């Protein structure tokens, strides 16, 4: 049986995961809590809107309503990375070597760990940010497509066009594909070597969460009454193939997915607060958390894949250690 350590946050859990193997929970009010020997709570923002762990897992970078970007380490020490203009900072991404990108309306910046910055200035609002695996390029989701901006050169952006509002973006682990989330209950993908398009549609709800399996063979997504898992192992990615529909629990919408770091399985969070784990091969399900009142908003495994941190819309949060 799984063991669950539960925390009660005041508000919506924006991010739950592990920083240097310490469970860390960031809530929308701006408090970040660390589950060390004793619980430690740090007020980092007046309103926290986005958070992402650094790629080495040693710190959590966050942006907020206060226009601040902060960095918190596993000891709970907070440093100010950047103070932006007056608008909300609601998008953030991290890349290799401590690179950070943030978005605030139509403006944003790439902050290199040398302290140098590069401007992001678009005609449309920044809806999503993701660094390529090697960190040389930044994908920026916006209306009508995804911009690919170089980190170190002034070469102009490559624009991956597809009509409609793109509200989030991610690279595949091998950097071969760019996948975006769309306003109209779909994903869109581009294969970068030939700009071939992939449409992944049929979702009954907006897709809010996607996660790559550890070797990049599968892309798991939320937005349906099951975890929708697309095969990417073939030459043409998921084109012409049906996705797997896993971990369906009746008429309960999946709101969050997170693939395991070492095995072909994923954790699945639902709109009623339930959490399961499911094996991709045979679809076998293990229940990890029973129904509660609020939707799961965040799920992250620790490095070894032995513990799962979760958080909900109502601020419930905790760590599950599957048996």
């Amino acid at each position, binding site marked *: 049986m799984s063991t669950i350590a539960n925390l009660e946050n005041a*508000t*919506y859990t*924006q991010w739950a995961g592990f920083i240097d193997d310490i469970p860390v929970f960031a809530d*929308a*009010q701006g408090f970040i809590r660390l589950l060390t020997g004793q619980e430690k709570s740090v007020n980092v923002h007046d*309103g926290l*809107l986005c958070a992402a762990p650094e790629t080495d897992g040693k710190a959590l970078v966050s942006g907020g*309503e206060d226009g601040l970007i902060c960095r918190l380490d596993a000891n709970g020490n907070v440093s100010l990375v950047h103070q932006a203009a*007056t*608008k*909300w900072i*609601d998008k953030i991404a991290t890349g290799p070597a401590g690179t950070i990108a943030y978005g605030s*309306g*139509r403006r944003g910046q790439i902050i290199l760990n040398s302290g140098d910055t590069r401007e992001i200035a678009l005609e*449309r*609002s920044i*809806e999503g940010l993701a660094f390529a695996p090697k960190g040389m390029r930044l994908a920026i989701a916006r*209306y009508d497509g995804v911009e690919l901006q170089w980190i170190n050169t002034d070469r102009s952006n490559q624009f991956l066009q597809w*009509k*409609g*509002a793109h*509200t989030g973006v991610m690279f595949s682990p091998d950097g071969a594909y760019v996948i975006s989330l*769309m*306003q*109209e209950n*779909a994903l869109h993908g581009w294969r970068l070597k030939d700009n071939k398009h992939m449409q992944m549609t049929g979702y009954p*709800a*907006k897709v809010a969460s996607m996660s790559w399996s550890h070797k990049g063979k599968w892309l798991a997504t939320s937005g349906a009454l099951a975890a929708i898992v697309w095969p990417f192992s073939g030459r043409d990615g998921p084109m012409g193939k049906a996705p797997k529909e896993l971990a369906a629990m009746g008429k309960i919408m999946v709101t969050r997915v997170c693939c395991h770091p070492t095995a072909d399985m994923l954790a699945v969070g639902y709109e009623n607060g339930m959490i399961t784990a499911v094996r991709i091969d045979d679809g076998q399900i293990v229940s990890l958390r029973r129904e509660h009142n609020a939707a799961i908003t965040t799920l992250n495994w620790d490095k070894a894949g032995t513990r799962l941190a979760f958080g909900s*819309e109502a601020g419930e949060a905790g760590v599950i250690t599957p048996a």
Partner: protein
Amino acid sequence: MNDITGQNQQINEQPTTPKIPVTVLTGYLGAGKTTLLNRILTQDHGRKYAVIVNEFGEIGIDNDLIVDSDEEIYEMNNGCVCCTVRGDLIRVLQNLMKRRGRFDAIIIETTGLADPAPVAQTFFMDEDVQTKTRLDAVVALVDAKHIMARLKDSREAEDQIAFADVILLNKIDLIDEPEKAGLLAVLAKINPHAIIHETTRAEISLDEILQRNAFDLTRILDDDPDFLNKSDHDHAHHHDHDHQCGTDCNDESHAHHDHSSTHGNLDTSVHGTTIETVSLRASELDPNKFLPWIDKITQIDGPDILRLKGIIAFKDDPDRFVVQGIHMILEGDHQRAWRSDEARTSRLVFIGRNLDREKLERTFAACAV
């Protein structure tokens, strides 16, 4: 998109916390939006507001929680040009709702040139916004002194009036009585359903503009059974049998209109307005004819239909069926049983441009049992 059956509403109906009401303020620069906003925020009503603005005006807004966002109109990728939402509002509302304890209601102040349709449609087309918030009312501020000139050169000013549930005819002290009468007639022509208040320096009892539930058609019809009759005064006079006009009738909207014929191009040359209203009326309808009909009408003419509202009597159906729409978005639901003292009359009103009155009248009539 079309959700005429109301089935979605049942799925979304979870026993959760009530939806946060959102009031949208529209109006041209200088009409008095900031004055009204500050009036709302500083009055001692015990309610806390979050305010979303698209541009900080020169005069400050006195509130703790103001969010500045870049206006983003997103066309939905479904081949329909009028299916637009405001991407910035989706994001800001989602983020605001993560800390809902901070406020009791939300006010959106749009820019003078903003199109109100994407703002309103956001509340019907985005599931995240729809489950947590509800559009309470669209309040338009109109500068009494300058609106006539605005209407001549801008479509936005007209759209804002057409979309409004409540209109504040502000700076009323700057015009004389004949000007006012003319203005009221124009407003009634563009939007016969809006409640119009004449104000000076945006002075108004806040009950008149907040917590209106104006988009809840069920409530409107219960509070104001005459709601859908109002437009009849204006345009559909020839087949309006409820309203008898005597010599002492002082309904402003009568004064300047010719009701006898050519409704389609009524007055447009005089006032420079392009929006008109078509009011339809019939006895009992056949749902198997009406539902496909309204679906088709909104699919084909959606871009020209700004708003539609109606109450329908279906044959063998004890309950009133209410319907409302914005462009191609339709919502319909059963409301309550017809009372024994009520005539089972179906009424439907379109506010829009280039409406084909003859076609609408003919095809609507064909839905009768």
